[in-house]
């Protein structure tokens, strides 16, 4: 009888310990990742530096693209515009953000002009190639130039198609790729609820 109680106790202690280790290591891994996100310096279309801290209580919805892109990028940003019109028309919860991964051609003036044609205000950002590489890597996105001739000014850029939802604390989640506003709106709501429950969980875990 005693043996059984002891083994149950050992199992309980062991699971509590491994749970705690997982809890703490996960906490630090995320902290390390979000620190990297804070370090990458991005600037807006007026040349002012921007950090995820300025999101405050809003959830940023980030798209990585370039203004030379006439198909995938406007289609995605337009889907986002319509989706947000449906679920957050006053923009109290979400901040749509376009980050150009083509800083060589996309000067602030060009990004500003490009975003002016959408029916909603989209925050335009870019940075140095180094900062962009670090930011995209730590959020889980990627981009690469597709340029055969180095003289060719009409080069294309391959980039992640999906949006990312990010908090001012640096917690980010990918939003599954959807090619129409209705499905995108649903995906945004789903990821938002995951973000919300995650941040509640983090408040508890910060006690440790």
């Amino acid at each position, binding site marked *: 009888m005693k043996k059984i109680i002891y083994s149950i106790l050992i199992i309980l202690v062991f699971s509590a310990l491994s749970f705690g280790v997982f809890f703490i290591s996960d906490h630090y891994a995320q902290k390390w990742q979000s620190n990297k996100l804070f370090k990458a310096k991005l600037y807006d279309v007026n040349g002012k530096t921007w950090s995820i801290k300025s999101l405050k209580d809003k959830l940023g919805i980030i798209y990585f693209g370039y*203004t*030379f*892109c*006439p*198909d*995938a990028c*406007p*289609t995605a940003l*337009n889907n986002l*515009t*319509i989706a947000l019109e449906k679920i957050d028309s006053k923009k109290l919860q979400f901040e749509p953000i376009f980050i150009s991964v083509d800083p060589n051609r996309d000067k602030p*003036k*060009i990004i500003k*002009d*490009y975003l*002016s*044609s*959408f*029916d909603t205000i989209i925050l335009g950002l870019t940075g140095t190639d180094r900062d962009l590489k670090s930011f995209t890597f730590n959020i889980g996105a*990627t981009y690469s130039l*597709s340029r055969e001739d180095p003289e060719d000014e*009409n080069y*294309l850029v*391959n*980039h*992640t*198609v*999906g949006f990312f939802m990010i908090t001012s604390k640096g917690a980010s989640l*990918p939003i599954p*790729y959807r*090619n*129409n506003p209705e499905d995108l709106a649903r995906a945004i709501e789903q990821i938002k609820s995951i973000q919300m429950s995650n941040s509640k969980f983090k408040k508890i875990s910060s006690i440790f």
Partner: protein
Amino acid sequence: MNQKLFFTTNILILTTIAFVSIISDIGAKNYTYKQVNASDPWARATSKLAKTGAVYIKNIHNKGKNAVKITGFSANIAKKVQLHNTVVKNEVAKMQHIEFLEIGPNKSVQFNPGGLHIMLMGLKRPLEKNSHFPLIIKFEKLGNLEIMVDIKNIGWSQKKPSNYKHVHH
């Protein structure tokens, strides 16, 4: 009795079909040349400093008995016009240049956002909404088909007729 019922249902079906085709014909533009037909070419309006644009065509249909081959496009509005396809692989979007496109007998191709598009590079002037510009589709052997591309505002979507109405009020 039964025959009468059959007759009325038939009339009803016929009128419905006629009604639907009238509705879908409002605003539809068709360009026919020999055995090919291109319908509803459009492009999204661009901002003032834009260097590129994309042209979409709702449908290109080959009603002939032989395959046709598109070998290129040209438009005065841009320095370079290329057939592109946006391909999403491992969550990464990539535009691929397509040299030529074959349409089999009695087959169609669609050019929609996020897929096949005619890419305009080096725009000489921005694409202004509610205006239009000519574009030439070059077919091997057949010759050239000239179409007029309608420029829609950025929120316009080909698939949603409700948005189409929205543009016009």
